[in-house]
């Protein structure tokens, strides 16, 4: 719900920039960046939750073959945890470098504190690992989008 609200807010901010630009005012750069950054943070946050809720898409044509078996759950957890650990390991130096330089927007008038947004990659890695474990414990339900 919070993630959806974030996406909705990002849309509203995006619209505000279009509206301001179309009118007699100009849309500040930081407003555009706010929409993009908000969107990115919501995505990093929502991936894990969606995985935990077993809402990620699986092959629809092989529903019966996919099944809810313990084997599928086991492989899901193994692959997701492998992905999460690798992502965390390679993202850590990337995020630390951003923190060390106090990275901000490259645009004049843009937002500072880009390192906070980049830290979302670690949140993504944690979310994928934790979400897969929670999903594995619950037992997957098929979700065909």
């Amino acid at each position, binding site marked *: *719900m919070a*993630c*959806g609200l*974030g*996406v*909705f807010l*990002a*849309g*509203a901010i*995006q*619209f505000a*920039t*279009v*509206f301001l630009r179309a*009118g*007699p005012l100009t849309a500040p750069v930081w407003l555009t960046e706010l929409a*993009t950054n908000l*969107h*990115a943070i*919501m*995505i*990093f946050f*929502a*991936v894990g*939750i*969606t*995985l935990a809720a077993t809402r*990620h*898409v*699986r*092959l*629809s*044509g*092989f529903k019966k*073959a*996919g099944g809810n078996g313990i*084997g*599928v759950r086991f*492989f*899901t957890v193994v*692959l*997701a945890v*492998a*992905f999460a650990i*690798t*992502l965390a390991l*390679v*993202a850590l*130096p*990337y*995020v630390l470098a951003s923190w060390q330089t106090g990275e901000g927007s490259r645009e004049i008038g843009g937002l500072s504190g880009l390192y906070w*947004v*980049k830290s*979302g*990659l670690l949140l*993504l890695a944690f979310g*994928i690992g934790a979400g*897969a474990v929670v999903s594995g414990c619950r037992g997957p339900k098929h979700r*065909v*989008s």
Partner: protein
Amino acid sequence: MAAYLPFDLILVVLAFAALLSGVPVAVALGGTSVMVGVLGSLLGVFDPVLLFAIPARLFGVATGNLLTAVPLFVLMGLVLEKSGLVSDMIKAVTGAVDAQPSGSRQTGGSRLPIAVVGVGLLLAASTGIVGASVVMLGLLTLKPMIDQGVPPHRAAGVVAATGTMGQIVPPSIVLIVLGDQLSNAYRTMQLDAGVFAPDTVSVSDLFAGGLVPGVLLAACYIVHLAWVGRRDRFAFLADVVEDDTSELTVIKQTVKETFWYRIVPLAAPLALIVSVLGSILMGLATPTEAASVGLIATLVLVALRREASNRRASKLGLLVVAVASAAFSITLNAPSVLAIGLFACSSGALLALVFLGVQRLVRDQQFATVLIEAAHLTAMIFFIVFAASVFALVFRGFGGDERLTALFEILPGGTYGALFFVMVAIFLLGFFLEFLEICTLIVPLVAPVLLALPMGDGSPMNPVWLGILIALNLQTSFLTPPFGVSLFYLRSVAPAGMNDWTLYRGVAPFIALQLFVLVAVFFVPPLATALPNWLFQG
């Protein structure tokens, strides 16, 4: 010894094995990629530096301007569906056809199926969500069509085929994801060829490219339905239905009722389509900006939606929109203190209407549902794009792209042979893979190689043409039994007596029509490329 192992093929085989075993798509792609990548690094056949490129790639995907449009279009489609605007539109069209004067309704006629195609085109251009379109059309039009004497198989075929038009008619989520992948592939191809100031292909190009084939497809459906309806009418000429209630309905309909229940429900999506597509095609807004305009416009439409309990509010809302639009026009033409004041007033009015729209969704207990669904769908799409991005990185790291190039070079038929091979592969994969997997898994692998192949006249392949061919191909495979996704959706809402064979029989002519349009675009590329060239380069 490890150097001789085809790690790129091992990666593909493992990824497909994981996919087929039922592991979530994103987990299957991402997990196998990093495991094979790390193994390759340990064996010294994969450059581990490439793995450290993953965070920058994922961050680029999450903050890229292009894919930010996806959640906004998803939200827009969900608000349209959950607020009842879509069902209003369908009822308005089917109701208008149903309320024809006595004697005009004929068993097996073509009027209602053709109206359903028209509604499907509007739905495709406003929501772009195939599942929602098929389910809504199935729920609201299958029974009326069958009641009017349309054969059940044809009614099912119309709904399934029309519902999939959201794949090709902009603003389509498929075209946005495809545009992102093709844009990357086109840049990669040019950089590989030593072009360091590469041309780009945008989602706007693909949207413009999809418009003519989409309309052509709808026209083919309509011609087909008119033809078979005419044939049926001759066969059942004696079965003209006398329907006094229809006549009575027409007489009773006042101009006011017609306006609120027939014209407004149809004008609303038309206004939405004009505001979203118009702003993109005229170059006034990027797809992401247009998506945000579409979302806010949808909420305004929800606020203006005619309800028995809220007629006064609807009238007031229409008045506010008219005044705000006039104020906004004055503002644009004469910037002054007064103009800024009017601008502020119109902004306030717009804000009030958006608030009213949200409030109506909250009152109907749909707002939370919309947000949660949108968050889940968006997260799912982005996770697959993340994982596919890692998969493509590792695949290329093992030299998989070179192997593909070598494969295409030995295929008979040159460029067209390679393209035909890829199209057949995508068609077959479409039976059991979702569009997302194909767009994010297959397209990044084959598109850079295909785009580098010369056409008959020596010019490079047009990426818009390739994108539209892939989108049309995907649409066809989603309709093809036994795994067509559209058929799964329709089956979930089909009447009890309608079995699988009825569905298969119904979609067969529409699959033929889709293949006809696909072949037409293949042999006449300007069908896909002329409009974007004219709009954006001419």
